[in-house]
């Protein structure tokens, strides 16, 4: 890993011209799964099955949660924080608090306005301290630096009224990955209190935008679900658009004008190399992964007419899935990979259609007036998010038959929804009238908790990856 980075660095240093021609920055390098650990052997607690229920699950969004600083067994130096493991414990609690607050989940109170528990209190909280602060839930945790430099982070959730532990988990992470432990802890709390699947430990690929409206510079960029660990992957000399993370986060599909024409590339995050999705003179757009990562959908214009094609992710025979004089573009697989929802203007305007994964049984599903564009199948399988065009552009959801359509946003131009890994939250990008300024926003499935994501510059085309292992 280290030597790989070194080689990559030497390569970029040795061949700046080649790097420019590809418009690629230095590779990020791959990262592996987070190791789960017993919460802490030193605590000598046996893992027991947890069978408590939350006091009131229906009103979980109003639940007050106290998240004091995570304790440390022994103050030690760590590359993760210049001030040592104690300061890192406070940062971990801050990240968890921000996660739960920013997503409109619960009413968290963070470490900066709470007393700091001692290490021994992590597994034996002083509940009277917290019940007096109208906290219904209590999060405790610790950070321990191992001799090999890795960090052990433990995370405990307590019901203050019941004075009982609801759930606990521990993880071993490299110092650079300390935020992932905070996200894992956020996911543990979220999943235990809501019964929903986790989503915080995930990443987002998107397009960073700068410059005037008629000469926008568009760069491929990635970030954690909370906007941290931001990286630009391309340099901006060529327009980059519409990225999609592979299900295992090892690759990104995206469109680049690096050779002057719109073409889809498969960018390998580990090696920093990229290849064309298909060797063809025709322009290729709108890349999508199959849920198992083995196939790639793309749209290709031949003699001006765009249809949808499929190719194995490792290259090989291209299969044409639609054959229609209208524009057929995009596509999003059902989670089981058996069907694809896509858009077509074969009826005279953009509408959403479903077909079998082999292209058979194409049928229109959107009949609610207005247009249906950029459909994205929910990871849960029961909903399809899309761009509804009816005067303004807004994010809508419908069931897989096109029924129960609901409009979730009210911007002037809200476009290109992407689902959180748990199918509860939708991100999209919003473009301002006249200025053309853009930003990534998110809204939850109920239409509540709309907020803008912090990005270093303007942003569009978000693509939310799956939960990380």
């Amino acid at each position, binding site marked *: 890993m280290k030597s790989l980075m070194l080689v990559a660095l030497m390569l970029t240093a040795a061949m700046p011209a080649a790097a420019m021609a590809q418009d690629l920055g230095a590779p990020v390098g791959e990262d592996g799964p987070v190791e789960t650990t017993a919460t802490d052997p030193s605590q000598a607690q046996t893992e027991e099955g947890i069978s408590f229920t939350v006091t009131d699950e229906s009103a979980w969004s109003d639940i007050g949660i106290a998240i004091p600083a995570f304790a440390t067994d022994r103050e030690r130096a760590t590359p993760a924080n210049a001030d040592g493991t104690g300061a890192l414990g406070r940062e971990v609690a801050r990240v968890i608090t921000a996660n739960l607050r920013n997503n409109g989940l619960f009413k968290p109170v963070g470490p900066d306005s709470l007393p700091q528990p001692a290490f021994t209190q992590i597994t034996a909280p002083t509940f009277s301290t917290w019940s007096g602060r109208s906290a219904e839930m209590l999060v405790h945790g610790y950070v321990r630096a191992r001799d090999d430099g890795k960090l052990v982070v433990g995370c405990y959730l307590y019901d203050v009224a019941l004075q009982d532990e609801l759930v606990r988990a521990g993880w071993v992470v490299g110092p650079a990955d300390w935020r992932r432990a905070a996200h894992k802890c956020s996911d543990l709390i979220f999943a235990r209190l809501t019964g929903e699947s986790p989503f915080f430990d995930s990443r987002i690929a998107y397009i960073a935008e700068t410059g005037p409206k008629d000469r926008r510079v568009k760069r491929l960029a990635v970030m954690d679900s909370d906007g941290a660990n931001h990286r630009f992957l391309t340099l901006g000399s060529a327009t980059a658009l519409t990225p999609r993370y592979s299900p295992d986060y090892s690759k990104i599909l995206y469109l680049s004008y690096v050779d002057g024409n*719109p073409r889809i590339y498969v960018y390998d995050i580990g090696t920093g190399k990229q290849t064309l999705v298909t060797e063809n003179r025709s322009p290729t*757009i709108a890349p999508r992964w199959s849920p198992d990562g083995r196939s790639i959908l793309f749209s290709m214009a031949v003699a001006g007419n765009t249809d949808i094609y499929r190719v194995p992710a490792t290259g090989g025979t291209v299969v044409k899935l639609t054959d229609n004089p209208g524009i057929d573009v995009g596509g999003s697989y059902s989670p089981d990979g058996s069907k694809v929802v896509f858009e077509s203007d074969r009826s005279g305007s953009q509408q959403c259609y479903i077909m079998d994964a082999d292209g058979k049984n194409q049928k229109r599903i959107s009949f609610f007036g207005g247009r249906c564009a950029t459909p994205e199948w929910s990871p849960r399988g029961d909903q399809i998010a899309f761009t509804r065009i009816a005067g303004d552009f807004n994010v809508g959801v419908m069931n897989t038959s096109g029924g129960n359509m609901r409009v979730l946003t009210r911007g002037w131009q809200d476009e290109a929804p992407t689902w959180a890994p748990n199918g509860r939250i939708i991100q999209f990008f919003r473009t301002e009238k006249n200025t053309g300024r853009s930003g990534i926003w998110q809204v939850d499935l109920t239409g509540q908790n709309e907020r803008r994501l912090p990005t270093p510059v303007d942003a569009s085309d978000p693509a939310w990856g799956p939960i990380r292992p």
Partner: protein
Amino acid sequence: MNTKLATILLLASATGLAACAKKAPEQLPPPPETNTGGNTMQPVTTTQPTGAQVGTQQHFAGAVGSSTTIYFDTDRYNVDSQDAAALQAQAQYFARYPQITFTVEGHADERGTREYNLALGERRATAAKNYLVSLGVDANRIAVVSHGKERPVALGSDEGSWAQNRRAASVIIN
């Protein structure tokens, strides 16, 4: 192949006209920019550009004026009579300078989704190319590229700006 495309184009222009006719004329989009003598066809023979070298965009624009670019209705890609006149001016120019190769850049206005607009820009540029080929320009001289809504020329968010951005522009790249 060509007949099939021609049929599609004809069908498209028919539906295009029908759609236009049905559309309530709330406000007609202003005509595209008229920088060099309006939308009438510029007779190539009488225009002798001074200064610009043959094979440059300046020379081409000097010769055909605003006819370097044709404009489309919302979501349409048919070549109407005004477009046809402009493309005839282009075809005459390219017949006169057979060594010149060029690119037709297809564009869409901002009021469309990104990927659809890329496909639409491709359609528009190809429609312009096919028309030029039908006028005798060798297809091998014409490259096509779509920029979707990524490269507007008019920066407002209003009908007038959008009308200027729904375009296929012939560009000579040296």
